[in-house]
Structures are given as C-alpha cells and as structure tokens.
C-alpha cells in the first residue's frame, strides 16, 4: 500500500494511504494552493471531522454534514462542478459545511454559503459559492434566527 506522510500543526506527522487523500483541484476559497486534503474523525461518534490540508500543516477545518445543521439543506451543482467532481450519481456527493467553534460551543456557527462538496467515488472535492439569500456564512448552530436546529 502506497502512502504519504502528512505534517500537521495539530496532530503531528500522520501516515495517510494514498487512496485516502481527497483532491481539491481548485483548492478552497482563500487557500487556492491547498489542493489535497485528508479527512479524519474529530469525535468518536464521527459527527465532526477534520478536513486537513496535505500541503499546509496549519490548514485544517472542522466540518460536518450540512443536513445535520439545517435539515433539508440542498445545493444545486452546475455542469462545471459535476464535471470537476466526476459526479455521476447525486448520492455519491457528500455535502458538508465548515464550522467555526469559539470557546463557548453555544456560539458555534456554520458557513452555509460555502459548502464543501466531495465525491466519495472519485475522491474529489470543491467549495461551492451559493447565491441562496436564506443562507448565511455565519449561521448560528443554536438559537438561529429561523429556529433551525434551535433547542427552545
């Protein structure tokens, strides 16, 4: 099994089998040069994952499935995105969002405007820019304005 060593600021050096790497041909917004990532679980239940750059040790995001934050969250992919992902079946696409988690977890927000879409078959991903005015780049996980994922 071929593999690579990935240096990370948070987790030290980790061994990643090549087939676990995910290619982001366009990088992510603000980090266009970061074109390879790996994913691993943050928590035992697997709800939260780290999206760690293979190219930049300090670059890692906490992500989770978008519909966990907003049930029914959907994105529409254009031809260009489908081609980049090599997407044949919609079911192959994982739709995730990046989380911002400050000291108080109740203040956590999710970036609903820039979801991360990954094709599990081709192990390719991208960050989408949505035009949906209902979504915010800083959507509060708790006590949100629309009562989504609100505990009260």
């Amino acid at each position, binding site marked *: 099994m071929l593999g690579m060593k990935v240096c990370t*600021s*948070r*987790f030290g050096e980790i061994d990643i089998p090549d087939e676990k790497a995910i290619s982001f041909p366009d990088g*992510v*917004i*603000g*980090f266009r040069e970061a074109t390879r990532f790996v994913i691993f679980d*943050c*928590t035992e*239940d697997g*709800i*939260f994952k*780290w999206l760690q750059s293979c190219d930049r040790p*300090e*670059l*890692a*995001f*906490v992500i989770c499935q978008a519909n*966990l*934050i907003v*049930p029914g969250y959907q994105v529409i992919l*254009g*031809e*260009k995105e489908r081609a980049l992902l090599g997407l044949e079946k919609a079911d192959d696409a994982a739709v995730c969002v*990046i*989380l*911002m*988690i*400050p*000291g108080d*977890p*109740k203040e*956590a927000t999710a*970036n609903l*405007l*820039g979801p991360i879409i990954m094709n599990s078959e081709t192990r390719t991903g991208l*960050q989408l*820019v*949505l*035009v949906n005015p209902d979504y915010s*780049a*800083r959507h509060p*996980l*708790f006590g949100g304005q629309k009562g*989504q*994922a*609100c*505990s009260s």
Partner: protein
Amino acid sequence: MLVLSRRKDETIMIGDDIELTIVDIKGDTVRVGINAPRAVAVHRKEIYEAIKRENIAAAGQMALPDKGALGGIAALLKQAAPPRK
C-alpha cells in the same frame, strides 16, 4: 479599470459569449442581467469575500483539537435536532 457608461437596456459584451445588460436603475441600485456560459462562475463579490473571511477565520481557530467543545456541540445538536434516519 475600463469604465463605460450605459443606459437602461444597453448591454456590454465581454468576449464572445458573456453579456451584461442594465435591466433597471433605481436610485443607487442597478439591476444587471448576466448571460454567460454555464461554465463561467458568477458571484456577488461580497458573498465570495464572506466565505473567504469565514474560511480564514475557521482555519485559524482551535490550535489543538478540543474534543470537549466538539462533544458539547454534538450533544447540543442531538438535543436540538435528532438526526433523521
């Protein structure tokens, strides 16, 4: 930057296949119609900038994985919206 004056219903061509039409002008708001091939990404710049800002902020946080905070969020999320099967 090239600056052109256009009136309502006038169009600017960019290359062979991108058209920008001034649809309406009201006060300080201009409505612009865009015809472009599907492969061309068209965004409001402020949305792109907001995503970029959030990415940079999200990437700069949590110097160490704080499983306590994440576990707390997982618990809160489960309380708030049980994952649907």
